[in-house]
């Protein structure tokens, strides 16, 4: 039987990007600033968010969507720091969150009563880089206990991220971690990346981080 060829030229991520654009529109209508926190497992995203909720929860209305392969542990931890609903997405095996899950998670959040939305992505420096969730920016969190060359090993993630948080700064005296080298490697792949240096545990650098979040949230509501 004759074979005929049909031109398709359709982007594989088109459906996700369409949903992400709709999420972005929804957030913009309500002047909500959204950050997609991406990192390897164990970089301290959840503690960073716990401390952020403690520091800003009284002045900013913060919503959180967490993504994990299994368990709602992170959402439970965060829920103890806020009176607001923390939406947990259990991906059940999937290595990243996609815009479909965020669309559904937003249905449970009162966006009119929200200033700032954090999406705590699945701990993974590879896959979440490929999925736009409708956020204002991705923020890559990495910690001083990881190698300085994380940005070179996972360039797509750093290229997609507008900001980087270097966490666990309190451990520097015990580690052979060269901060300048880490920053310079990150700038090799993403020259415009802006850094924050924090220890969520001791509170170091949290004032600058929180000031940035306040500014970002104000910028959206103007």
């Amino acid at each position, binding site marked *: *039987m*004759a*074979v*005929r*060829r*049909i*031109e*398709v*030229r*359709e*982007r*594989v*991520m*088109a*459906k*996700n990007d369409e949903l992400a654009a709709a999420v972005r529109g929804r957030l913009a209508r309500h002047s909500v600033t959204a950050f997609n926190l991406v990192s390897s497992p164990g970089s301290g995203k959840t503690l960073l968010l716990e401390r952020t909720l403690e520091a800003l929860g009284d002045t900013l209305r913060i919503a959180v969507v967490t993504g994990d392969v299994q368990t709602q542990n992170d959402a439970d931890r965060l829920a103890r720091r806020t009176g607001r609903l923390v939406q947990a997405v259990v991906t059940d095996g*999937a*290595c*990243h969150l*996609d815009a479909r899950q965020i669309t559904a998670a937003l249905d449970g959040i009162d966006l009119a009563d929200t200033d700032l939305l954090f999406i705590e992505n699945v701990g*993974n420096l*590879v*896959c979440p*880089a*490929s999925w736009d969730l409708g956020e204002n920016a991705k923020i890559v969190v990495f910690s001083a206990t990881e190698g300085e060359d994380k940005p070179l090993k996972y360039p*797509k993630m750093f290229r997609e991220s507008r900001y980087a948080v270097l966490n666990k700064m309190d451990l520097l005296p015990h580690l052979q971690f060269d901060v300048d080298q880490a920053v310079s490697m990150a700038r090799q792949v993403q020259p415009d990346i802006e850094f924050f240096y924090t220890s969520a545990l001791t509170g170091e650098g949290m004032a600058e981080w929180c000031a940035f979040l306040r500014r970002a949230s104000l910028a959206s509501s103007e």
Partner: protein
Amino acid sequence: MHEMSVALEVLSIVEQHVGTESLGTVSKVGLEVGDEAGVVLESLEFCLGVLLAAAPFDSATADVERVDGDTLRVTYLEVEDGRT
């Protein structure tokens, strides 16, 4: 690591074309995958191979072309349905 998600998305694009354009049997699915698309070629080919060998495709194959940049798209379908 997310090649199966990508492969499933490819399948849903193919199925949509089959449905809306009433296409017959799909024998080949052409793709372009950029070297910065964050996709492991061999892994994607493996996933597509498994999915395209099963119903409703049965014996379709994937033709994956490596290109520059972060392109990730379905480029063409080959169908056998007696039409020209």
